[in-house]
């Protein structure tokens, strides 16, 4: 009989066996999708269609369709970009950093979180591409290719170019990491497949995986090294995104606190989005035994910690503005708090600083409803954070005659809606055709981390 620790909370409940894991996860890929899934995909496609319409005009007529003006040259586009990249931080953080820390609870959430990361980074990359205006010549502007449009090579001193390298590397490495984990699970679906088409498709996707001990040994080495490589990578991406602002001389942007503050904010919003999606997936797919209340509580604790770091960063910014003695800095921050965009500022403060503090209460952080609501509130707050940083720092330019305000047009909104459509369409397709939980990893902990309701195995 297996000895069950009474101290350690089980990671998988209801005495699931290894075969149960295969059955519970594969059935979602094999069975016809539920009606709710069809409706969800349809809704996402509607968003995508509406966004596609506005996107067509944004590309055809140029970014003059947006509400940008001479003073506010960056607004929703960059706000959305930073927001999506931030969301894209949780997946690789869960699979890489938590792997290095040997946190086994990552195993049942890493697959979906990594998928979410990849889709979020895709949505993020979309905004700078559109902002280039003529994106069909964008290759020459962002990649080190010899060209005759002005300067011969790209400028490696520019943070915007660092961004190109950071985002594309992050996307590629996350995709490779995710796919590597999928290979053994695709092999499981291949071996269970009844019809010929899925046997061929999942056979190709599984790369001919057989599960030999030699391959597993190499696989584990590769996962560990990839985690080691991805860990500094996760931290570097938002650091470099924050350099876009921090290396400028605009009051409100020109601060050295930006890199750690942005990274904390990214993890904060990323975990919130993971929770939003996982709570729905868990409910629809009945995965309560794999994603337990314990998992949700741990994620809420990470939100509480990173949310508090973000709160301290906001206060530090204000202190530094006052302590610097630079009137322009002081004005920029007072203007944030009490100026024409103070409503955005206070929305951000409420959502990001006050609301995560509710997670100090065990009742709230173990409540599914409260967690779901707060996870959305956090992401609203994080969108406003980027909006506040970008727009309020720009709108009162150096000469009062050029002071301006920003209001979004239909095309600003539509292009944002487009990324929502893209994100949810991809996520729902993933949830149907890919195993949503890393079966191989969960199976490896079944023996040590499951409850034995049956008494013995």
């Amino acid at each position, binding site marked *: 009989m297996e000895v069950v620790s009474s101290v350690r909370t089980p990671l998988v409940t209801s005495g699931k066996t290894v075969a149960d894991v295969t059955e519970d996860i594969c059935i979602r890929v094999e069975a016809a999708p539920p009606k709710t899934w069809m409706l969800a995909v349809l809704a996402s496609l509607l968003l995508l269609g509406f966004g596609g319409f506005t996107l067509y005009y944004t590309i055809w007529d140029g970014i003059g369709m947006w509400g940008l003006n001479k003073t506010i040259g960056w607004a929703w586009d960059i706000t959305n970009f930073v927001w999506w990249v931030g969301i894209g931080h949780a997946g690789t953080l869960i699979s890489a950093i938590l792997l290095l820390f040997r946190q086994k609870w990552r195993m049942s959430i890493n697959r979906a979180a990594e998928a979410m990361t990849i889709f979020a980074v895709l949505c993020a990359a979309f905004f700078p591409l559109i902002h280039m205006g003529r994106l069909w010549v964008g290759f020459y502007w962002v990649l080190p290719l010899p060209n005759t449009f002005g300067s011969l090579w790209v400028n490696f001193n520019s943070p915007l170019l660092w961004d190109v390298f950071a985002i594309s590397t992050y996307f590629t490495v996350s995709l490779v990491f995710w796919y590597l984990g999928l290979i053994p699970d695709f092999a499981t679906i291949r071996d269970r497949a009844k019809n010929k088409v899925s046997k061929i498709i999942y056979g190709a996707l599984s790369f001919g995986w057989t599960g030999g*001990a030699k391959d597993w040994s*190499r696989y584990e080495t590769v996962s560990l090294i990839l985690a080691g490589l*991805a860990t500094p990578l996760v931290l570097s991406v938002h650091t470099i995104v924050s350099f876009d602002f921090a290396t400028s001389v605009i009051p409100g942007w020109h601060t050295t606190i930006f890199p750690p503050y942005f990274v904390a904010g990214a993890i904060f919003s990323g975990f919130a989005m993971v929770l939003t999606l996982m709570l729905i997936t868990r409910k629809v797919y009945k995965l309560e035994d794999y994603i337990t209340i314990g998992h949700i509580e741990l994620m809420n604790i990470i939100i509480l910690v990173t949310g508090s770091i973000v709160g301290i960063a906001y206060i530090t910014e204000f202190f530094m503005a006052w302590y610097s003695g630079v009137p322009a800095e002081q004005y920029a921050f007072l203007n944030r708090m009490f100026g024409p965009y103070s409503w955005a500022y206070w929305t951000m403060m409420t959502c990001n600083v006050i609301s995560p503090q509710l997670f100090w209460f065990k009742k709230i952080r173990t409540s599914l409803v409260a967690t779901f609501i707060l996870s959305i509130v956090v992401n609203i707050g994080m969108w406003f954070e980027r909006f506040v940083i970008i727009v309020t720092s720009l709108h009162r330019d150096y000469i009062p005659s050029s002071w301006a305000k920003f209001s979004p047009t239909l095309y600003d909104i539509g292009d944002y809606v487009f990324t929502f459509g893209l994100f949810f369409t991809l996520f729902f397709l993933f949830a149907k055709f890919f195993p949503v939980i890393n079966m191989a990893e969960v199976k490896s902990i079944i023996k040590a981390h499951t409850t034995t309701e049956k008494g013995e195995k």
Partner: protein
Amino acid sequence: MDTGKNYILGVYSDEDVLIKAVKKVKGAGVKIEEVFSPFPVHGLDEALGYKRSRLTIVAFMFGALGTTLALTMQFWMLGVDWPMIIGGKNFASLPTFVPVTFELTVLLSALGMVGTFFAVSNLKPYKQPRIFDVRITDDKHVMAIDLATNSSKKDAIKKVLQDSGAVEVNEKTFE
């Protein structure tokens, strides 16, 4: 590994029994072709006598290649081929080259290592794998023994497998 024809398969349902069984079977003088598992079993590679993977060295070498390429590219482009005055600063300066150098190091290291792993383990989309038992990717561990490489009799091997705790002992023949 893809050469044998006639195999004897020991099927196990518990990873701890499996590791003990590997030692027992090896102790009885039977040569194990390979052990297949649905998930990574820690200690199995050691029991089978596999050496530590050298893919870590591959990762380092690809990473070093990435660093070298990134630095050479940036210094050559901005310092030699087409120097530009940007804000009156040096044509080429190391600090601003650090982010791109870091990213390319990670990129080449990751892609190079995973590519090498696929190559040495012969993993590719159009591969037709030899599946000894479809339950390997579900919940069973399978120990494959190639009859051609073993001098012992079939029945003797079967006996060893049964004694080691196998829940099933099967035969498998490939065309």
